[in-house]
């Protein structure tokens, strides 16, 4: 495969270094357009919400737009908009990230404002209640208006019985209602430190320039001494299969999902996780995948079938497959078909054609990603935020190429055990 060779020869320069105060920096140079993507990632997410305070990581993300000791609320957004920039932020289980995309000459200004926001957050009680209402509306929009999203929450809670990955990122409604300014500041003081952050800059710049600008902005923040420690209860190994179902009169198209816990890239079994990437791609990556061919094409049971491996996590990952029945097909028939397709895969493993196709598609995705500076910034930022390294990201295509069929079969048999999966059913009332 010569994708591989070309990647080596033309790979974009990626450099990383650490400032004296502990801030990690990654620079991806892409000079095609006079634009930069500037991101700061904090190594904390909803899984670090204190007990009873679910949603605080996400609520704080909203409150980070409410001003600092130096700048009033909205000032940073006005500056970004005035430069023609775009900005936003997002919260996940393991990280919270803030980004701006701006014409390159404004990189320094972004750094000044974002560095100011790392330690200078300041707002009074009056903004808290309206913003909490905004978050409650966000939850209503994303979850309460959508039965599939509600099942998703219950499904995750069943998959993770003890670890906070089982709690929604946005938080449970009754706990969001109780979040206060003090909760937000306590969380902020604990996690928003240079040692806990990763600066990622991608675009029309280089490491020397970013280092100079970062020293002059982020470099002035005093070190705290050590990065905060993530203290999370560990998830026990599952011993039972579980089923959750949600019946709702709004459901006119039922669906079925099944998930299993897996290790992550940082749990010391990288080869298994790489193999699971191939398992996910072979089972449910597109219309040539095993489940699609079996359920949608050959047996005509399903309208759609897919798989998703959420591998980039700190503590535990999960591999999930899903399918929805064709009109007239019962959920029982669909589930029987899914069981049979999975059993056959575990028994016989993939064909060499399936292996080759999955490798090609996964590796090509990394080439396509190189077309987008913001995709690259996200790939490197999220990897570092969960404890992987720049080298891991760069080596990933070669490692995927090297995964053998036996490893795929073994990993599938070890983790996709029928007696340990969680099944979720979305059903009409």
């Amino acid at each position: 495969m010569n994708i591989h060779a070309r990647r080596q020869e033309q790979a974009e320069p990626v450099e990383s270094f650490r400032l004296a105060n502990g801030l990690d920096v990654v620079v991806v140079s892409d000079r095609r357009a006079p634009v930069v993507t500037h991101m700061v990632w904090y190594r904390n997410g909803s899984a670090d919400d204190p007990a009873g305070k679910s949603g605080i990581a996400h609520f704080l993300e909203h409150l980070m737009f409410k001003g600092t000791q130096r700048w009033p609320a909205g000032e940073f957004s006005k500056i970004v908009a005035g430069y023609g920039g775009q900005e936003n932020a997002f919260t996940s289980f393991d990280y919270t990230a803030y980004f701006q995309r701006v014409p390159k000459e404004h990189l320094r200004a972004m750094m000044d404002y974002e560095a100011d926001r790392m330690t200078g957050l300041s707002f009074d009680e009056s903004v808290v209640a309206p913003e909490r209402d905004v978050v409650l509306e966000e939850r209503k929009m994303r979850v309460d208006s959508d039965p599939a999203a509600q099942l998703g929450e219950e499904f995750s809670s069943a998959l993770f019985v003890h670890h906070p990955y089982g709690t929604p990122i946005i938080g449970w409604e009754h706990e969001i209602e109780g979040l206060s300014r003090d909760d937000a500041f306590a969380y902020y003081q604990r996690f928003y430190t240079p040692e806990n952050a990763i600066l990622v800059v991608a675009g029309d710049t280089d490491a020397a320039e970013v280092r100079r600008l970062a020293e002059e902005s982020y470099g002035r923040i005093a070190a705290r001494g050590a990065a905060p420690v993530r203290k999370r209860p560990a998830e026990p190994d599952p011993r039972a299969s579980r089923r959750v179902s949600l019946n709702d009169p709004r459901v006119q198209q039922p669906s079925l999902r099944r998930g299993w816990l897996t290790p992550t890239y940082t749990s010391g079994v990288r080869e298994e996780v790489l193999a699971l990437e191939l398992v996910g791609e072979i089972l449910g990556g597109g219309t040539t995948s095993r489940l699609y061919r079996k359920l949608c094409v050959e047996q005509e049971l399903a309208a759609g079938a897919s798989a998703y491996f959420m591998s980039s996590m700190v503590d535990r990952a999960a591999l999930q497959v899903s399918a929805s029945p064709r009109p007239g097909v019962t959920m029982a028939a669909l589930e029987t078909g899914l069981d049979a397709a999975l059993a056959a895969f575990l028994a016989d493993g993939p064909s060499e054609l399936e292996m080759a196709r999955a490798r090609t598609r996964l590796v090509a995705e990394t080439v396509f990603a190189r077309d987008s500076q913001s995709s690259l910034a996200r790939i490197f930022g999220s990897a570092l935020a969960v404890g992987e390294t720049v080298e891991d990201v760069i080596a990933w295509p070669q490692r995927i190429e090297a995964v053998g069929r036996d490893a795929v079969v073994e990993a599938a048999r070890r983790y996709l055990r029928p007696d340990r999966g969680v099944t979720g059913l979305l059903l009409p009332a």
Partner: protein
Amino acid sequence: MNAPIPTPALNTAGPAITVQTVRSPRGVEAWLVEEHSLPLIAVDFAFDGGTTRDPLDAAGSAYLISGLLDEGAGDLDAEAFQGRMADHAISLGFDARRDDFHGHLQTLSTHRDTAFELLALALNKPRFDADAVDRVRAQIIAGLQRQAQNPDVLCRNALFAAAFPGHAYGRPEKGDIDSVSKLDSAALKALTPTLLDRAGLKIVVVGDITADELAGRLDALFGALPKGEARTQPTEALPIQGLGQTHIIDLDVPQTVLRFFGPGLMWHDPDFIAGSVLNHILGGSAFTSRLFMEVREKRGLAYGVSSSLSPLREGAMLVGGTATRNDRAAESMAVIREEMAKLAADGPTEHEVEEAKRYIIGSYPLRFDTSPKIAGELLHLAIRGDTPDYLARRNGLFAAVTLDDVRRVAQRLFGKPDLLVQAVGKPVGLV
């Protein structure tokens, strides 16, 4: 921490992109942006017509066809066709929208021969095998069922139906379960040449290919398609029906989805540029617009609120919307109306206009930092009848907008406070 860099002067230069016009021996024309630093090629194209060419009794035809072109073509059945795509990591997809039938091909340049061959087959020799038609139709029906109680989808479809009754724009782009269930292979096959004709075809290619190489390939892709007849571009927008009315679909959800149409501006309306500045101030800007400040920031009524100018080939709307607590839906809509009325009465401030122009001009390069984005932007220009020199002219057009221009457009668009409002949920007190 240092003070921020002082506000710079407006730089109105366009994106540094060279667009070549490539013409094949048979007269197929494409715009090309050569970019050899990555081994990728993106091809985006649009046929004029889209779902408006669905027969009256067969809504959803174009959308179903868009799902079938890569489900077997020439000697390759669906499995063989998609196997070749997967084996070469080729991404090929089609989509039918209100005015256009779009196609998108993305490939590694090492696999371009296979990619172009598959695209040529999909466009010129789609098979419409019965099992593939059954499968894709079932997928579309499943999708329609999934969305049947989705407040956003219900709201959008109801709004188009109320605004454009009797016109193709009033019908849902994907059809409905009833209409899609009746579509059959023979009729789809017969309709396809009318959808994929060269009359309004626009093609943009970005990436690792030269003009000569592209010129030599265009005929195999598009050269044999029927000539077709170009539609004329109307100068007047279709009137929006039902302005001044509020419609409610009762749905048991904790939040009301609100969307509205007001009169908008056609692409080539002399006020379109100033209108874009006006919309940015009202609800276009993500974190600084008046609607964002009044609805979300000050009152916490909603997570999102926005507006946009939405020109269609034959119509023009100002579209706005939010999703808000049922018990405060009336308040949210009142706040939105009030902001529009204020803009009509007083206009924006000089500062707002300058900030909006600064954003619109400064953000232009952000639309050109990936190949698919470059292709998408250029295709959009081509569809609306502009030429590549617009890239260099565009920022100057915005720089020339004055406060008086924006005031004038605010009076024109918001002076009569009539909106067509569609709500889905259990709104309290909304009339």
